[in-house]
């Protein structure tokens, strides 16, 4: 027989458990379980009514089976029956089963709620606690609906027992987290705050968790808790270790309560009342002093509890960030911990110091520990500690110590754990850029990075070095020389080949004077790597070769030879083959002038936020790189680096393509290739280059490639849209007789809010299809005009109804034929009116005139933003000006199916955030609208009410007009 179970032993259960433990294999275990399940099922189904004990025993067995990881699909009813049992243990098992296994079976929930209701009103404290526990464990919305108003009453009622009050407080907290809308503030709220004064320490400990959460959401209503918390804290801190009896933990008075009080205070700014503030500072000083006293016990529990309070106090000091004296003391204390023999303390000290490093008062003090931290990075046995050390080095880095820190991180990278290499690489890359005083150091660092940890160097990192080299002519020669040397290594990383290919292709001429790096030597060096590389790199190298032909005419014959060989010109990869064919042709038929224009040096990149930083943020999850960090880098970037903080983003190049006179936005200059272009490329295929987005323009034949620059004046009417044609052709006829806007134009527009492709319009004659893609603040739209009849359309013109100079589309559309038009779109500022499109043609004798709204809506320029629940609500709160919010309550027009809704919200372009809204029924999204001038952060919340078939939609955006517009647009969608 196994160990004896205590209390109400259930022999059958013990036997079953020991049987399972004796099973030799997984199969035997499953067999035994199935046997038991069959047995229980027959018992439950049998005619004979089971007594309470058996019911309890079987339910408990089911629970055990479930906890082993098997599915349980029956027994719920029996468990619910146990809830109304007279026997305490039966009730208890019933509640346990429900807590662990409840699903949203509404039938059952009603029964459970009934049982809970009975127990709550029983006035029996043990029963009430069981019921409250069940509510807290399940915490579903149905339960919140049933009990959210009842529990506050229990919590503040004068005659409630202390133990029930404790449970009620935490139960309410749980419901508030799930369904904040159901827990209404009221008269009870002020009484809850006064629970901080309750003489029962257990009640205070439980209540303070609730108060902290409520204060975070409604700081003003709970302001009074600050002074109460300070006085309570002060009483604990000054008490002797024996005063609090059982609430003293290993000689530390009330550590849990102390920490929670300090945490509550972190919801507020420093107290304004001088006396309160004085008292608090005194408390904090006492806590810091106590750290220096000899320990009252050798037990680790004693030091843990004591240091827990100390760390919480330091968090508060850092949160206030206003007491230089305390900050420096905190920093010194953490400095001591950095060398402590307890690994846990070293870990926490490193972590805490990271936040301290961002305070102006303590930044210098943190820096004094640099040697210790570097040492930690080198010698700590535990990878998670080393990682914190790396984080801290990153946080404490500034111009004065950047070279040292970057060097240390680089050397650590050689042996770093694989799990943290990518992050380390990003950090090194960011620091190197942010604090670069001379760019040769920057180039060296990044090339070293690629050499040491090439596999972990993401695209963002090597894009960035190229952008910086292109934008700074003082470093180009050095970069060319350095990559040339790096490429000499017999084995070098593919990323090195990419950077090398790109840089030599642009700036190889700067080192060509030296016979050791003559053009042919450079070419041979690059080409020696060619066969070891993947397709994208080979494509890039081919582009570098054509650039070489332009830079060094003497290499032309050799390179043409290479391009001409079968392995290139007949390569099975379409992309490589296309490049080889086009480049070969280009080099043989184009004159030197044309070549020089087509293959001109890359124009500088526009300035943007570093994409590496964005990547690091993404990797670490939102909030991991603090806002200060970001602003910091912007500031520093501007001031130290003369604005080298320029954006990589490939989309940007595609954009400037349309408006820059230089045709060679891509290394290869697709546009110039197009006229020669033999191989048709689908509009979707992307060149795998640094600027992959600069995809080939659609097949040349029927394309009217309008450079389409939308300039929205503040008046935000479509009249002020400005369109520039790229062609030098005749202007379209001015629209003297503008067609009246189709009555269904708005409806058509609404169809495209959440999708990008489809049929925009169709009548008996004409069908207009749309394909569009958007990236950042840029978009490209393909319009397909299909003639549905068998008769030719004559004088076919399409006029985006704007201030237009554009090349008309083919004036004749044959019966059954389709023509295509491409519009490039840039969003300059937010707007609410969609641009219009006029279409005119003759069908038979009759003039057809149509006017449509082009489905370009502000949401097309969304970039999804992932964030945690915490960040979401913080930002939500920050956008609390009444005009920033737009809300609509409306009836559902379409299916309320979850998947359909999700698809629509994703189509909207925002990120759909899971686990943010406490109510799982609700949808929460976040995104940033990218316009040329600014970025507009948008948060969205959609609350469906299935019963009423209604929705409530709330939008908060950093710009009021955007909230309004999005709200209008979206209200039509659901």
């Amino acid at each position, binding site marked *: 027989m196994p160990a004896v179970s205590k209390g109400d032993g259930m022999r059958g259960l013990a036997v079953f458990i020991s049987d399972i433990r004796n099973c030799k294999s997984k199969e035997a275990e499953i067999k035994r379980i199935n046997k038991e399940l069959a047995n229980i099922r027959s018992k439950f189904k049998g005619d004979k009514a089971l007594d309470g004990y058996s019911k309890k025993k079987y339910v408990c067995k089911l629970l055990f089976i479930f906890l082993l990881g098997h599915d349980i699909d029956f027994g719920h009813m029996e468990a619910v029956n146990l809830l109304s049992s007279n026997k305490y243990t039966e009730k208890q098992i019933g509640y346990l089963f429900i807590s662990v296994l409840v699903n949203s079976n509404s039938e059952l929930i009603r029964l459970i709620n009934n049982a809970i209701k009975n127990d709550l009103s029983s006035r029996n404290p043990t029963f009430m606690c069981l019921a409250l526990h069940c509510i807290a464990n399940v915490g579903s919305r149905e339960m919140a609906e049933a009990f959210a108003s009842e529990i506050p009453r229990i919590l503040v009622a004068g005659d409630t027992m202390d133990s029930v009050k404790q449970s009620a407080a935490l139960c309410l907290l749980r419901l508030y987290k799930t369904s904040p809308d159901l827990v209404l503030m009221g008269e009870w709220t002020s009484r809850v705050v006064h629970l901080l004064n309750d003489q029962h*320490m257990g009640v205070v400990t439980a209540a303070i968790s609730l108060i902290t959460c409520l204060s975070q959401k409604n700081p003003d209503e709970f302001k009074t808790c600050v002074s109460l918390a300070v006085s309570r804290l002060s009483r604990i801190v000054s008490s002797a270790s024996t005063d609090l009896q059982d609430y003293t933990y290993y000689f530390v008075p009330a550590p849990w309560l102390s920490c929670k009080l300090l*945490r509550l205070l972190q919801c507020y700014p420093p107290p304004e009342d001088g006396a309160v503030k004085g008292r608090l500072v005194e408390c904090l000083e006492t806590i810091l002093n106590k750290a220096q006293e000899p320990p009252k016990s050798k037990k680790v529990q004693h030091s843990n509890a004591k240091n827990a309070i100390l*760390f919480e106090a330091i968090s508060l000091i850092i949160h206030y960030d206003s007491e230089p004296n305390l900050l420096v003391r905190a920093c010194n204390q953490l400095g001591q911990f950095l060398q402590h023999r307890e690994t846990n303390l070293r870990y926490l000290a490193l972590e805490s110091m990271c936040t301290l490093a961002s305070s102006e008062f303590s930044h210098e003090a943190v820096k004094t520990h640099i040697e210790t931290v570097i040492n930690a990075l080198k010698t700590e046995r535990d990878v998670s500690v080393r990682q914190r050390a790396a984080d801290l080095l990153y946080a404490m880095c500034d111009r004065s110590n950047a070279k040292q820190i970057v060097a240390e991180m680089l050397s650590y990278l050689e042996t770093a754990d694989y799990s943290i290499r990518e992050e380390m690489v990003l950090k090194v890359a960011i620091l190197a850029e942010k604090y670069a005083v001379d760019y040769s150091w920057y180039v060296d660092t990044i090339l070293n990075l690629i050499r040491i940890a090439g596999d972990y160097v993401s695209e963002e990192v090597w894009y960035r070095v190229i952008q910086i080299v292109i934008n700074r002519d003082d470093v180009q020669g050095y970069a060319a020389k350095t990559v040339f040397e790096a490429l000499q290594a017999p084995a070098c990383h593919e990323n090195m080949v990419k950077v090398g290919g790109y840089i030599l292709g642009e700036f190889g001429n700067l080192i060509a004077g030296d016979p050791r790096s003559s053009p042919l030597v450079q070419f041979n060096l690059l080409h020696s790597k060619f066969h070891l590389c993947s397709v994208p790199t080979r494509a890039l190298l081919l582009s570098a070769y054509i650039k070489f032909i332009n830079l060094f005419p003497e290499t032309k014959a050799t390179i043409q030879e290479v391009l001409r060989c079968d392995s290139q010109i007949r390569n099975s990869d379409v992309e490589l083959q296309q490049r080889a064919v086009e480049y070969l042709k280009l080099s043989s038929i184009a004159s030197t002038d044309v070549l020089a224009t087509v293959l001109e040096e890359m124009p500088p990149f526009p300035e943007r936020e570093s994409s590496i930083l964005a990547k690091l943020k993404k990797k670490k999850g939102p909030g991991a790189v603090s806002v200060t960090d970001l602003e910091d880098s912007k500031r520093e970037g501007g001031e130290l680096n003369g604005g080298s903080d320029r954006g990589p983003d490939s989309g940007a190049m595609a954009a400037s393509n349309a408006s820059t006179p230089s045709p060679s936005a891509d290394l290869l200059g697709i546009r110039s290739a197009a006229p020669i272009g033999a191989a048709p490329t689908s509009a979707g295929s992307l060149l795998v280059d640094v600027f992959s987005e600069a995809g080939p323009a659609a097949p040349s034949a029927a394309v009217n490639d309008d450079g389409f620059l939308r300039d929205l004046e503040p008046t935000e009417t479509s009249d002020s849209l400005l369109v520039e044609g790229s062609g030098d052709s005749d202007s379209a006829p001015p629209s003297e007789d503008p067609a009246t806007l189709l009555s269904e134009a708005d409806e058509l527009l609404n169809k495209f809010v959440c999708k990008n492709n489809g049929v925009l319009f169709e009548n008996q004659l004409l069908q207009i299809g749309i394909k569009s893609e958007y990236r950042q603040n840029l978009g490209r739209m393909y319009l397909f005009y299909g003639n549905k009849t068998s008769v030719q359309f004559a004088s076919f013109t399409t006029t985006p109804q704007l201030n237009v100079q554009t090349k008309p589309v083919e004036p004749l559309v044959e019966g059954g034929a389709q023509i295509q038009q491409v519009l490039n779109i840039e969003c300059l500022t937010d707007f609410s009116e969609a641009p219009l499109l006029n279409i005119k043609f003759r069908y038979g004798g009759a003039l057809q005139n149509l006017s449509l709204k082009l489905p370009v809506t502000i949401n097309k320029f969304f970039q999804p933003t992932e964030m945690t629940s915490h960040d979401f609500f913080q930002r939500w709160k920050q956008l609390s000006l009444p005009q920033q919010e737009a809300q609509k309550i409306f009836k559902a027009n379409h299916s309320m199916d979850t998947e359909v809704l999700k698809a629509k919200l994703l189509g909207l372009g925002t990120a759909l955030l899971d686990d943010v809204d406490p109510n799982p029924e609700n949808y929460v999204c976040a995104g940033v609208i990218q316009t040329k001038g600014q970025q507009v952060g948008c948060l969205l919340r959609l609350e469906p009410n299935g019963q009423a078939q209604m929705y409530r939609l709330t939008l908060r955006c950093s710009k009021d007009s955007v909230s309004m517009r999005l709200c209008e647009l979206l209200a039509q969608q659901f």
Partner: protein
Amino acid sequence: MMRFLLLFSRQGKLRLQKWFTPVTDREKKKVIRDVTMLVLARPPRSCNFLHWRDLKVVYKRYASLYFCTGLENQDNELLTLEVLHRYVELLDKYFGNVCELDIIFNFEKAYFILDEFLMGGEVLETSKVAVSVSVEEADTLQETMEEYMSKPAY
């Protein structure tokens, strides 16, 4: 607040799981697998904390059993170690020199004791005496409940 508490053996066998926020079964299985693997792979005398996803994981080994919990970002790691310790003390007080087998065979009791100590991922009662009293009380209640129920409500 704590998001979850897991007790598992050195062989990775799960002995107790408690979830303080709604999590799908699928996700639970994934978390259990990932966290146990992560913790079991740690060399001895490593620190007791690590970052995992957006959570802090705090764990401690008592004899053959790992006590492991996932915390939200602003929670205090050291104090959480003591939450785990207090739970062990409570189990010890109830079972008398608690061992893994006690928890296997009396898993329901382990849950009940936990419920008296934590609720919704927050500490409900820190006094060992108070918790033990309510647990013991519950045990005695089972005998007297029948009498108790036949009494008038108040």
